[in-house]
């Protein structure tokens, strides 16, 4: 392409003043040059570096908030540059849109050229066949027309595309080379389009689901949703998933003690409201697929169940509360209980859940991930939880800036045990625990087309390498009537790129066969010239 463009550029008279159209054409040529595409590809790689160095909104909004707190001067500046949302940043979009345009602008005209050349008939035979890389002349007693008819028939039988004229036959074979090339180029464009399809219409989400609970695949039902650019709330496939129970088994002895051996999440799901419920055993790397959406099991943990009664005797909290694992060996998990509507004061609890609680040097730890000896250890607070100001809060953090700690018995709670709060503020009971799973929900409509495109691109490439385009020309002329061989038959061959080799043999075989079809052939000092 660059060569063609260079040639085109040379043909242009060196302009002193480019008109607007001239500038546009110049710009388009620059954009669609291979060099620009490579520079853009490099820029794309460079531009994604901040995405892995800095916390990203879509992946970990909490970490972004922490970064803002830690770097109050730098963070707002970076924020204005979209450094916390690199893959959604306008400048990132600018790079990939330019890259797409550049590649499309480079590949599309090439694809059209290839399509044209694949349909082209063979060219007229050159006048002087002996100048071609492979050339042989034969003498025969057959008339030129008979010789040409024989050559034409033989070439057609060998599946050449044949064109005849007065005194000549030209034939071409190996169009599959162009077809392979064309397939490769189209598949390359399709691959780009598939990636774009995924980025525009796909989405990713996360949801933490406690055993017994149900979630709906909707913007409000997902904890985190990262939609593609053209995804709206109504585009999410309306399925629901219920976690019936979660089973985890761990290695109980030996060096691998505590390592997970088996996870299974028994799910029930329906593909839309009112559709029949189905069952599915969800395991690691065996996603549930609903309507093309994949639901992966990516994590698990414990959700202790608490019941809180406030100072007025009302039950103000009664639910399983997901705690987040701090470590994997014993699944010591941390979490908070928020009771903003308790009376007379709002209540908050922060603490840890220990599946197998043991005392190590006077400190509590969990010795095993299974709930063999479950205990909960909590610190209690009373006051304003800061939730009424309307500022969204994480459900895993307790803002204690307007709360005071309550003096309660520090002993860890066993299931069924309670903390009695001082000053008649109420009571918390540790009822028991449930398990939760964390699910990753991904929809990428471009995934399958991308796979097909990649396979097609590879197949096209292999085809274009394996098959070579070659031309064979035959001219028959009347020699002197009294000669031993009244007709001179010239045969010449031409191949474009003989990377795979083998044309020399094919040509020799062809000439041999042609000699066989001619009546009384006389080989008149065959000249076999091997081209450069």
């Amino acid at each position, binding site marked *: 392409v660059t060569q063609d463009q260079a040639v085109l550029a040379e043909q242009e008279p060196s302009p002193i003043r480019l008109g607007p159209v001239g500038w546009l054409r110049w710009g388009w040529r620059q954009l669609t040059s291979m060099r620009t595409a490579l520079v853009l590809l490099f820029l794309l790689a460079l531009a994604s570096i901040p995405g892995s160095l800095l916390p990203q909104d*879509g992946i970990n909004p909490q970490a972004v908030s922490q970064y803002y707190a830690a770097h109050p001067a730098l963070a707002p500046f970076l924020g204005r540059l979209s450094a916390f949302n690199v893959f959604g940043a*306008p400048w990132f979009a600018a790079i990939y849109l330019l890259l797409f345009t550049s590649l499309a602008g480079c590949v599309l005209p090439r694809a059209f050229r290839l399509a044209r050349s694949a349909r082209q008939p063979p060219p007229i035979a050159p006048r002087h066949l002996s100048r071609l890389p492979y050339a042989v002349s034969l003498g025969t007693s057959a008339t030129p027309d008979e010789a040409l008819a024989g050559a034409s028939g033989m070439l057609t039988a060998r599946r050449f595309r044949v064109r005849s004229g007065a005194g000549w036959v030209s034939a071409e074979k190996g169009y599959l080379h162009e077809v392979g090339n064309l397939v490769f180029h189209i598949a390359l464009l399709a691959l780009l389009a598939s990636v774009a399809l995924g980025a525009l219409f796909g989405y990713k989400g996360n949801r933490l689901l406690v055993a017994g609970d149900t979630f709906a695949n909707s913007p*409000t039902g997902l904890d*985190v949703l990262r939609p593609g650019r053209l995804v709206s709330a109504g585009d999410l496939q309306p399925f629901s998933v219920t976690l019936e129970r979660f089973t985890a088994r761990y290695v109980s002895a030996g060096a691998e003690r505590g390592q997970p051996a088996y996870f299974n999440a028994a799910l029930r799901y329906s593909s839309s409201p009112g559709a029949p419920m189905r069952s599915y055993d969800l395991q690691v790397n065996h996603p549930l697929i609903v309507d093309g959406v994949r639901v992966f099991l990516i994590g698990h943990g414990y959700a202790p169940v608490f019941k809180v009664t406030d100072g007025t005797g009302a039950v103000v909290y*009664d639910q399983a509360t997901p705690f987040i694992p701090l470590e994997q060996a014993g699944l010591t998990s941390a979490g908070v209980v928020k009771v903003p509507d308790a009376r007379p004061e709002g209540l908050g609890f922060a603490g840890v859940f220990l599946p197998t609680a043991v005392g190590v040097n006077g400190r509590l730890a969990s010795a095993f991930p299974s709930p063999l000896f479950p205990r909960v250890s909590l610190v209690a607070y009373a006051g304003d939880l800061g939730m009424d100001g309307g*500022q969204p809060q994480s459900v895993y953090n307790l803002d204690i800036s307007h709360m005071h700690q309550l003096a309660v018995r520090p002993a860890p709670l066993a299931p069924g045990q309670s903390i009695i709060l001082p000053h008649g503020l109420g009571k918390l009971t540790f009822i028991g625990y449930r398990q939760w799973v964390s699910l990753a929900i991904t929809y990428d409509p471009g995934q399958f087309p991308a796979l097909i495109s990649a396979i097609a691109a590879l197949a096209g490439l292999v085809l274009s390498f394996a098959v070579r385009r070659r031309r064979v020309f035959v001219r028959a002329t009347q020699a002197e009537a009294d000669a031993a061989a009244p007709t001179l038959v010239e045969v010449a061959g031409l191949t474009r790129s003989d990377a795979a080799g083998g044309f020399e043999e094919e040509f020799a075989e062809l000439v041999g066969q042609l000699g066989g079809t001619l009546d009384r052939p006389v080989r008149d000092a065959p000249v076999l010239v091997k081209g450069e």
Partner: protein
Amino acid sequence: LDRLARLARRPVAVALAACVTAAAAASCSARAGGANQGFVGAGAATSHYYPAGSRPVAPDVRGRTLGGQPFSLAADRGSVVVMNFWGSWCAPCRREAPALAALARHYPQVRFVGDDVHDSPAAATAFQRAFNVGYSSLNDPGEQVALAFHGTVPPQAIPTTLVIDRSGRIAAVVFGEVSYIGLRALIGKVLLT
């Protein structure tokens, strides 16, 4: 991991395309960014009013209230209904609660109903006591009621508030926290049509 979803990205994409061509990246970074910061910040909301004739039909949602009473939206055909999707854990819901409770008292002829998602009846009942909410809410921990609005005007965030007209069609929606004045204006408009 706040459970606030955000507005559809369709306008963002259009804005982005405009930015790229105009090369005025700075002017549009605000909406394009912040995937999960949630557009439902304090006081921030977007609302949409559907003129009569272009109103999507609301589904007939059924369920049980936090108090255990059966509820059917279709039974309220003939009155204007305000449906508020909320949770006791959701800070913007807590901030808008006094406005909703006051409007429910101000418009006795309008049926107010809540849809309590991702929540437990105990915490939700404590919320209703704390904010003196006079109307009942559906118990919807698995968002099945919210999901029934798929294909019409699905809630895009918690809170979301729908105003449904007398013929059971969705006349207005507020994504995010409502204000007393803003919601009163929408209800007044729907009552007149």
